[in-house]
């Protein structure tokens, strides 16, 4: 799969001297990076270096403290690109009392769904066949993670922000996420992924964004 999508001139997401302050202290050193359609960026850094903070800021959950964010060349407008960005954090955003299928349905009701995608098929694809209708509270840690990752398959979005998507997954789950990232970037999407290993990306050389506390 050594296929690379040629970069359009305008980057999908661009950060210029981006920073965040907590109690008036910068959480990480100012960042500059560009992410084009078809690219994967790995956010790397030690525990506490600010990866989660960065992703939450990009997603729009934290206010940009310093510097600028640009979306397709223009200053980022949250309302304009809300449906284009999908964020998956340490907290999975699943209701424990609903089944994986019901959780997906709610998400699809908000975000819409990809043409031809369907909750049941997506869950089977991610390895939850037979568990579609169990309440999420009864799933194991890795099964919960899979249920959250199923959103990536079902919902339409251009930019994925994934905070440690590999944690708690077994080897086949990790491989599945890697393949997901490959097809997504091959389709012209982009992704920012934090991880402490486990990425094996075959769709070109991923970008590396290093965080320093």
């Amino acid at each position, binding site marked *: 799969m050594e296929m690379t999508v040629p970069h359009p001139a305008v980057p999908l997401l661009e950060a210029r001297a981006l920073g965040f302050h907590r109690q008036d202290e910068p959480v990480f050193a100012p960042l500059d990076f560009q992410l084009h359609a078809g690219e994967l960026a790995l956010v790397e850094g030690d525990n506490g270096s600010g990866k989660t903070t960065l992703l939450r800021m990009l*997603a*729009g*959950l*934290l*206010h940009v403290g310093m510097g600028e964010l640009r979306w397709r060349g223009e200053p980022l407008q949250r309302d304009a690109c*809300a*449906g284009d*960005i999908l*964020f998956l*954090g*340490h*907290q*999975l*955003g*699943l*209701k*424990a*009392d*609903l089944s994986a299928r*019901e959780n997906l*349905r*709610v*998400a*699809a*009701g*908000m*975000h*819409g769904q*990809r*043409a031809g995608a369907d909750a049941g098929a997506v869950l089977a694809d991610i390895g939850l066949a037979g568990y579609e209708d169990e*309440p999420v509270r009864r799933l194991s840690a890795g099964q919960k993670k899979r249920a959250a990752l199923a959103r990536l398959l079902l919902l*339409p979005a251009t930019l994925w922000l994934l905070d440690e998507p590999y944690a708690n997954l077994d080897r086949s789950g990790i491989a599945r996420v890697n393949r997901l990232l490959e097809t997504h970037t091959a389709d012209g999407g982009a992704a920012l992924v934090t991880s402490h290993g486990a990425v094996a990306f075959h769709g070109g050389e991923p970008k590396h964004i290093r965080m320093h506390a």
Partner: protein
Amino acid sequence: MNPPGLVTACAAMLRRDLTLAWRRRGDIAMPVLYALIVTMLFPFALGPEDTLLQRIAGGVVLVTVLLAMLLALDAMFSSDIEDGSLEQLVLAPQPLALMLGMKILAHWITTALPLIVIAPLLAGMLHLPGAVLPVLLLALLLATPVLSLLGAVLVALTAGTRRSGMLLALMLLPLCVPAVIFAAGAVAAAQQGLPWQAPLAWLAAALVLAVVLAPLACAAALRIALDA
């Protein structure tokens, strides 16, 4: 690839919250039982004198129902904050105010409505005269949504703090008092055979205002509260 229409999104939201409430129907029944318990305890605490009970019946039922609602208010967003679904809601390509409006509606349906349904029973336990009952129900129908709506704004404001219960209670007090005064005023007037429409009209006016403004305020408050 466009996000779905407002109606779809609203329906999804409402359905989600109602399903969740149904899955935890034990919790829905909580305010109801709480109100029942309170009303049952009164005869024990005050002695079972019918005339005394009858005299305080309207007030006790009102206070009980509103307090039972306050109880459930605190939980409006807490589970969504804990499991990260509120973040997902904030990030969804839908008007946040509208989605929150649906959440508030679901909350009212699952907490206030059951209370209103059992209000006649509560009133009966305290021997409230039957003629006053319609006024009491009308007062509750107007006062409870106001409380849900304004309460939601306050809950949203305190969402980012570690759900400081004190703060919530403190800020709700000024909201409760007028609602109770108007509602109790109407019931008392009805019980004495006087006209009771004026206080209820005030409540209705407050309700209209709250329906329009509260979801917007709630959305703004939530965005502030989550940003930390």
